[in-house]
């Protein structure tokens, strides 16, 4: 298993290097230039100033040279400065990262909290009316455009009923935990509703397969209580596919949810990546994207390793 992990780690590293090269190249293919963007805001910036600023930010050198410079520095641990925020990249990433972890983490927990009981309930009574209803609700959740859902929630709960704040991270000034929770309520609700369907179906399918297995029938025949059958035996084997969704969602924890963050003006990683890409901020965009990718790939690896532990039937080459 150690050899397996080592080989996969090398593959991940190779993939990240390849991705960094690709992304740098793609960013270079974006139209315009950070300095041209600045010119839009202040048309009095003349040709001499444009040339000076471009030289200052190093934008007049060829793309490959800039990439190699970046790569060399990154390998030494220096991720460079964000041009948009005039700050070191890692310090620009910290706050949005924290915000995204809170947002995505809570909605993931909430969605799973909905998915587990619903999926189990649906799996225990296959083809019943309950099962049908839960199934339909899952499909509804998966089929809604997220930004539309966000807007409906804002209009109903914030503008209409006035129960919850429509946007932002926290009220200006002190705030406190209760205040942060209130501001999180609608974004978390949006993401939970949007994702719960997907998770529920996964859990339902996994539980159905697990419940149909032989060792469940054996346990029941031996007279074990139903709760023990479900919790101990079935859930254990159902955890394997569930680990898949956890792993798949890990990348999302770090890359944030762009649409939800935009609608709720929540400063998270999704919005940061979008702004960095649109603002041609190479250093920031690259660092954020690679970080999200690395997290996702490592989570995948962890999931694969977990299979080996959870399911004794699985062996590794």
């Amino acid at each position, binding site marked *: 298993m150690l050899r397996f992990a080592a080989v996969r780690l090398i593959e991940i590293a190779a993939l990240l290097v390849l991705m960094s090269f690709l992304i740098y190249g793609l960013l270079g293919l974006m139209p*315009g230039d950070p300095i041209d963007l600045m010119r839009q805001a202040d048309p009095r910036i003349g040709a001499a100033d444009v040339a000076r600023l471009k030289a200052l930010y190093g934008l007049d050198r060829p793309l490959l040279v800039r990439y190699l410079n970046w790569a060399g520095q990154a390998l030494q641990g220096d991720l460079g400065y964000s041009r948009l*925020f*005039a700050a070191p990249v890692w310090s620009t990433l910290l706050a949005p990262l924290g915000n995204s972890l809170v947002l995505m983490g809570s909605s993931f927990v909430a969605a799973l909290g909905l998915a587990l009981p619903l999926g189990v309930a649906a799996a225990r009574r296959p083809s019943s009316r309950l099962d049908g209803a839960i199934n339909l609700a899952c499909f509804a959740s998966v089929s809604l455009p997220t930004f539309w859902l966000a807007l409906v929630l804002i209009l109903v709960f914030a*503008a209409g009923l006035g129960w919850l704040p429509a946007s932002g991270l926290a009220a200006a000034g002190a705030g406190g935990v209760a*205040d942060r929770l209130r501001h999180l309520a609608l974004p978390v609700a949006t993401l939970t509703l949007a994702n719960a369907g997907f998770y529920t179906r996964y859990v339902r399918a996994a539980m159905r397969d697990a419940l149909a297995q032989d060792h469940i029938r054996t346990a029941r025949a031996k007279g074990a209580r139903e709760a023990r059958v479900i919790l101990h035996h079935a859930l254990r084997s159902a955890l394997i596919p569930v680990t898949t969704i956890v792993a798949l969602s890990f990348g999302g924890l770090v890359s944030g949810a762009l649409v939800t963050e935009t609608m709720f003006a929540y400063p998270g990683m999704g919005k940061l990546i979008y702004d960095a890409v649109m603002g041609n901020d190479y250093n920031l965009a690259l660092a954020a994207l690679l970080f999200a990718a690395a997290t996702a790939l490592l989570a995948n690896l962890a999931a694969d390793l977990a299979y080996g532990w959870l399911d004794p039937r699985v062996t590794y080459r």
Partner: protein
Amino acid sequence: MPGRGRFPLLGRLVCALAVALLAGSPGRAAQHDSLTIGVTQFPATLNPDIDAMAAKSYVLGMTLRPFTVYDADWRLVCLLCTRLPSLDNRLAVPVDLGSGKKGVELTYQIRPDAKWGDGVPVTTADVLFTYQVGRDPQSAVANAEFYRRITSIDVKDDKTFTLHVDKLTFDYAAINDFVLLPAHLEREAFADPAQYRVRTHYRTDPTNPGLYNGPYRISEVATGSHLLLEPNPYWTGPPPPFRRISVRAIENTAALQANLLSGAIDMVAGELGLSIDEALAFDKAHGGAFRVLYKPGLTYEHVDLNLDRPALADRRVRQALLYGLDRAAISNSLFAGRQQVADSFVNPLDSGFTGDTPRYPYDPARAASLLDAAGWHPQGGAVRRNAQGDSLSFELMTTAGNRTRELVEQVLQSEWRKLGIDIRIKNEPARVLFGETLPHRNFDMAMYAWISAPEDVPRSTLYSTEIPNAANGFAGQNTPGFKSPAMDRLIDAAEIELDPAKRQTLWAEMQRLYATELPSLPLYFRSDAFILPKWLSGVRPTGNQYPTTLWITDWKAQP
């Protein structure tokens, strides 16, 4: 029952959470001692001289005083100085620089009571420091042209200084771009000029009161979300009206409207808020609960015509295009008449405006006859053709994602189609349009806007040497490619003409020439919509690019 053990705990947790959420709702404040402003952009940097950004100017309008600005009546006023230098009060002295060039020496005095937020007075040391930063090529100051024109500064005492400017223009007294940096704080950050933009206190320590000399100082920065401002204790001007001002950035305009309705924000800034048609729709649906102010401004929406295209090189075609547009109807139906139809690039509120420029009322018959005269005939098909069989068709471009412009585009397309002109709409993101397409002049027609200052001589937009091409690094803004020796002469003369009456004649001539030749089709002057709560008064939209927040001390909350 199986599984019962799990749920009660979960149920209790959910109940507790619900109570916490709903119980925390704030009651509506009876006293309006705080104000929350909603804007659509968050200022990424706060240093006044690095990176030009509308959101930054808006926030800094409350915290930093520039020397001079144009106020809501479009007059030049002194904010940080005591008197405007003029030739009459002899604070402005013309200087002969030799070989026919004239410069000017301007003497300003900083207000004696001006202090930074930490009590240190604003002095000429700050002036010299800011000048040093502005002139340094490595400091990343965006608009260094202003500093290059100042050849030197003489300091008389702590508050008085004289600028030596290398060119005498009619607006010599306006040093609106001169926003002072606090030398006592920033000098150490500027030790290495190349690192200044990273080490400036505006980034590392933005809540330091010593960075601000206006009525307010920034007390909290939540990047990407909001800014908090509190009164500056050392401010000696009119008292700040609010105990606290919060500026929240919400980029999505639908969410901005929802926040307004839910009371999370009190007002929407016109400079950075809803577009005019969104504001009109909002006004119609919810205007009873708010005060909506519309102010036409200096943003001149127009359609640039590429004069190198054979069809557009003919003035008759250009005039026909304008006759074929019912701009009054567009303004009335799309903008409830709130956006004034433009006849040239000069705003009617501008002092240089003259009323007798050629007008182009909606006249499709005249348009058709002009097109016929120019050699474009219907020939039985829907699209006009000329003798060589070319069809009269153009590509119309504008900034993608700007809904108002997209709406107008589609109206233009359908109106011109009635004249037999085929229009294909090709929109591009702003970055592409302004970064590449316009400078390289790869367009037929492009709809966008200029933002200018009052009495802004159109040198970069209409002068013949400012046509962007490979020779000047594609830096000019005369994108139609307008070459007129008469216009060049007028521009040169207007810049240095000090006599207001003579200047008026020059401006009138410029407008007449522009309206006859039509290098661009004037559409309208964009209005900004300010959505204010009923209890707020004293907000005077300026209509120019200087934000309303510069006059925050005039705002009042009626209980």
